[in-house]
């Protein structure tokens, strides 16, 4: 077992990744609660945004800040387009069908990324990564700080937004009962479209951060959605705060296991193990269903 000192840099790394998992998880939960869609294309949307940003900077010489905005904007727009095109026809279908449809979007984006950018080695380093300082022997850079802070801030801001604004109330009402909400005069399509837009923007931001923290690789970024999904499942696709905490715990455990060589090879199981344990614990007195009630 390594000494405590050796674990310290892994804590920083784990907190940063955990922050982004939380950010993605919150985006998924809000979208699910409003539209009933578990968006498994969340990672692919962010990945494609990051690749576009890379091309704009490295091929077309765009200013970095503008390219990063395009990344976030791409996530928002592609999600909105998907929501407009696929949302209405799938509105009455089972949640499983809706989730499977997003796998289709993920595969289209993954294929497009392979076609456009191939699998050559690329890197996207945010300027904030070069701003760093050391605490003892541990280096901390500002991208890591931003990753964690953004996860926390987005969770708190979203929770406040849902409670204190009219649109938030409409979204919560949709989460409870789509038909009654529509009957009450809430513009369901518009509320759903806004949710897709915001959730997509979060996917873009998460993709940007992960392409720096993990690497600019289409498959990796696409399948990192698994960790975020685990965080959302631990929160039973309801609580934003639990999603935040679960995301951070997944990131931390994953990183802290790394220097323990005997179990290091199994650390990719972390999200599955934690999700399974949490769901078993939560279901000890009840039956869990992800199907929406009162459709």
């Amino acid at each position, binding site marked *: 077992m390594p000494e405590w000192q050796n674990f310290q*840099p892994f804590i920083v790394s784990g907190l940063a990744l955990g922050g982004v998992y939380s950010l993605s998880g919150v985006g998924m939960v809000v979208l699910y609660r409003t539209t009933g869609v578990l968006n498994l294309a969340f990672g692919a949307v962010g990945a494609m945004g990051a690749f576009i940003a890379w091309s704009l900077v490295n091929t077309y010489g765009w200013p970095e800040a503008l390219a990063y905005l395009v990344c976030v904007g791409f996530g928002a727009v592609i999600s909105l387009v998907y929501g407009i095109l696929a949302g209405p026809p799938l509105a009455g279908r089972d949640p499983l069908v809706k989730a499977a449809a997003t796998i289709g979007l993920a595969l289209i984006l993954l294929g497009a990324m392979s076609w*456009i950018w191939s699998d*050559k*080695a690329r*890197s996207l380093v945010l300027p904030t990564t070069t701003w760093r300082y050391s605490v003892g022997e541990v280096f901390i850079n500002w991208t890591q700080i931003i990753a964690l802070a953004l996860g926390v801030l987005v969770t708190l801001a979203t929770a406040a937004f849902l409670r204190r604004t009219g649109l938030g109330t409409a979204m919560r009402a949709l989460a409870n009962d789509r038909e009654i909400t529509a009957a009450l005069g809430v513009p369901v399509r518009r509320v759903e479209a806004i949710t897709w837009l915001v959730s997509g923007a979060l996917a873009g931001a998460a993709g940007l951060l992960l392409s720096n923290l993990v690497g600019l690789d289409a498959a990796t970024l696409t399948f990192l959605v698994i960790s975020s999904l685990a965080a959302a499942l631990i929160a039973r696709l309801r609580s934003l705060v639990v999603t935040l905490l679960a995301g951070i715990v997944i990131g931390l455990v994953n990183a802290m296991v*790394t*220097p323990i060589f005997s179990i290091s090879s199994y650390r990719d199981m972390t999200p599955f193990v934690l999700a399974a344990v949490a769901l078993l614990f939560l279901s000890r007195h009840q039956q869990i269903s992800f199907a929406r009630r009162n459709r």
Partner: protein
Amino acid sequence: MRRNGVFVRLTLVLVASTALAACNSNKSPGSTTDSTTAPKCGAGTGQKATGEPIKLGAIATKQPGTDFTDIPNMAKAFFDCVNDNGGINGRPIQYLIETEQTDPGQVAALAKKLVESDKVLGIVGNTSIIECAVNHGYYEQQGFYIIDSGIAPECYSTPNSAAVNMGPRYSVDGATQYLIRQGVKKLVLDQSNVPGTGYIEGGFLLIAKDAGIPTESLKDNVPIQDANSVALKAVQAAGKDGGVVLNFTPPEALKILQAAQQQGLQDSVKWACSTPCNTDYLAEALGPQWNGKLGVNAELNLTTAAGPDSELYRAVQKRYAPNIPLGSFSQMGFVEASIAVKALMSVSGEFTAKSVNEAIKNIKDFKTDILCKPWYYGNAPLHIPNNTDRTVVPQDGKMIEKEGCFPISEVDPAIAQVRQIEAAG
């Protein structure tokens, strides 16, 4: 209203498709013509070969995430150049490329198809994850001598396979030797957690033990999802004055190296990498912070090297295969095709599978400036004709030579056996 809705959706799809196509900036220009002088290959007559084709074949892996077809495609480019220059005594080479998806049944069937149905006279340019393991027995039975780019251990340990590269095990050996020369006190090998890693680390362990240096072997699942932690783990395992050898594909190696840099770890240990890292794309992505800090084992010369073969390679690529990037893969295809053409040129009499394979087997002292020393085939229980390598390092977005040709250590038993075979002539 309904028609309008459909129209809006179709328009959105069209706009998205156009935007995607516009992003496709990576593709090289499609035009294959240019104003440069046509390269002279083979007989160099400048006349198109029009006789009865001589059939050669190849099998390459092509599946999501693993595409080795650049190698036979570059071999085809060279054959096309030969065909435009008189072919083989007026006969063009017809080159059949089959692709496989790591299915042993499919790979075995493709070899039979090429040999028994297509009646190819020789097999050149094979590059597959499993092909050597699956088909070496069949080729031995049929009397086919394969010129390939090796991956599986059987490519380097069976009598009817000779590769132009040296494969991951001996490339890791070369990277390990580089770090030992750098004076490291401990060696760590980090590689992807896939079948075959035990075979690859065998040479690393022997060479480190021979040098009296302690070792640690790490394996990481790919794609790597927590590069910062992987980089930290490797650096901690190596410790002060240690060295880390990476054996990953370029994108995965880049993740680790970039994460090391972000955590200020690029100077904490000495870094080395096996051949896949030898690409200018990696050097460019790493940036100047890594100038001279990553020793990469190079099985072939730099693509920018001087020398008649390197110049011909670039000219053939430019004219016949502009969509294939310059790099070790296309160099391998070029060298394999060059060897095959030399063998075909030496056939006197009728072209049959027997005469062509006999000519391939008899190749010796094939000199090219793309390899460190002459390549050969010959009668032997195993072939590792490329067993002398270079070390390159990134420098301002390019790979440059750090160390000239050096022999891979004979501490690795197969290399020792090959040197004995070479000494015996």
